[in-house]
């Protein structure tokens, strides 16, 4: 019987089997690292876009408004984007599994680590006016406008109190609309507020009203507003978004 080692050497020589070049493996490793970096950046971008969307659309103001607020928050949350990020992170953990520091720990730790990094990175990213600038230029590119497209959140009104009456007050929205809010909740002139309620013409039967800070973001942006503006202008960048 022919020796197995001779058989292998003969096969290599007869079939002209060649060793793959070292450069090929270096190239493959570089591509892998670049893919990991690229996916990480895309994940960070979308995580910060979710945070921006929550802040800019006023969605973040909803959870403290009770069950109705939570329900509206849940149904208006950009779930597609969130699931897309989870898929990216899962893909990232598979790519990174080649590395010892990843496979030596249970996959849950790697995924949690990536989630924490993406969330922290997303918050940090969202602190800067990066998304505001893109939002302002969204009309120039159809791809960008796809992600930054706005849609009103039903039954949610954000603005400033300009008149107070008996069990009612007048709210001026950022678009300049004046809405009469029927509510027993006590507010003061110039208060920025968020209202959930059913609209009939210019009258809103409020389910809940809550005072908000001028800057209601989770992490206030570094951008400094002009000091001579009236408070209403501090409820800035109150964009509404379509769920994508």
């Amino acid at each position, binding site marked *: 019987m022919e020796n197995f*080692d001779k058989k*292998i050497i003969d096969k290599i020589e007869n079939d002209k089997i060649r060793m793959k070049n070292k450069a090929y493996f270096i190239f493959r490793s570089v591509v892998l690292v670049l893919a990991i970096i690229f996916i990480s950046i895309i994940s960070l971008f979308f995580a910060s876009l979710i945070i921006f969307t929550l802040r800019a659309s006023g969605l973040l103001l909803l959870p403290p408004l009770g069950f109705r607020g939570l329900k509206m928050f849940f149904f208006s949350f950009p779930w597609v984007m969130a699931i897309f990020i989870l898929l990216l992170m899962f893909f990232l953990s598979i790519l990174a599994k080649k590395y010892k520091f990843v496979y030596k720990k249970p*996959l849950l730790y790697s995924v949690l680590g990536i989630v924490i990094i993406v969330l922290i990175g997303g918050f940090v990213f969202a602190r800067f006016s990066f998304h505001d600038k893109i939002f302002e230029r969204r009309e120039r590119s159809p791809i960008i406008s796809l992600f930054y497209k706005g849609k009103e959140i039903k039954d949610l009104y954000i603005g400033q109190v300009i008149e107070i009456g008996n069990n009612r007050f007048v709210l001026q929205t950022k678009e300049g609309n004046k809405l009469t809010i029927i509510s027993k909740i006590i507010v003061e002139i110039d208060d920025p507020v968020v209202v959930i309620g059913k609209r009939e013409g210019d009258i809103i039967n409020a389910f809940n009203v809550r005072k908000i800070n001028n800057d209601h973001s989770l992490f206030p942006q570094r951008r400094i507003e002009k000091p001579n503006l009236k408070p209403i202008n501090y409820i800035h960048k109150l964009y509404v978004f379509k769920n994508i």
Partner: protein
Amino acid sequence: MDMDLSDEDIVKLVQSGKIEPFAILVNRYEKKMKRYGRKFLSEREDIEDIVQRIFIKSYENIQSFDVKRKFSSWIYRIAHNEFVNELKKKKPLRFFDLDVIFPHLLSYKENYGQNIDRQIINKHLNRLPDNYREVIVLRYFEGLDYKEISDILKIPTSTVGVRLKRGLNKLRDIYGKL
């Protein structure tokens, strides 16, 4: 050729373009690969062809091997991938393995099951699920330590320990005498 050269020194020679030293590596690992394959794939007739493929792949990819690492872990990794591909042809393997995803609460010892009877294990090995069978083969028939098995299967060392423990417990259930 100096037969006392380490695997890694021989790989250096192969990487420099010499083909003959590769025969020494084949010679050193032929029996191990065939034994690993026979036990993991449950006595299949085409083991020789699969092992041949393993050596050809090793030769093709030998430039990717870092000589500072252990050659045995590297070639066992190639063998593992090849055997798993063979298993996949017969039946789909589980995509999600909870053993790898979650940390383990179950404790294990590095020398767990040292006094077990290999003949009994051998007799009932093919009745074990693939993931338990493979760690038992690598540990008790190939004599590899937990770290090496972890590097070959690319799973946490704790998962190796837990799979061994569970695999042996399953064998105990099957045989009742281990």
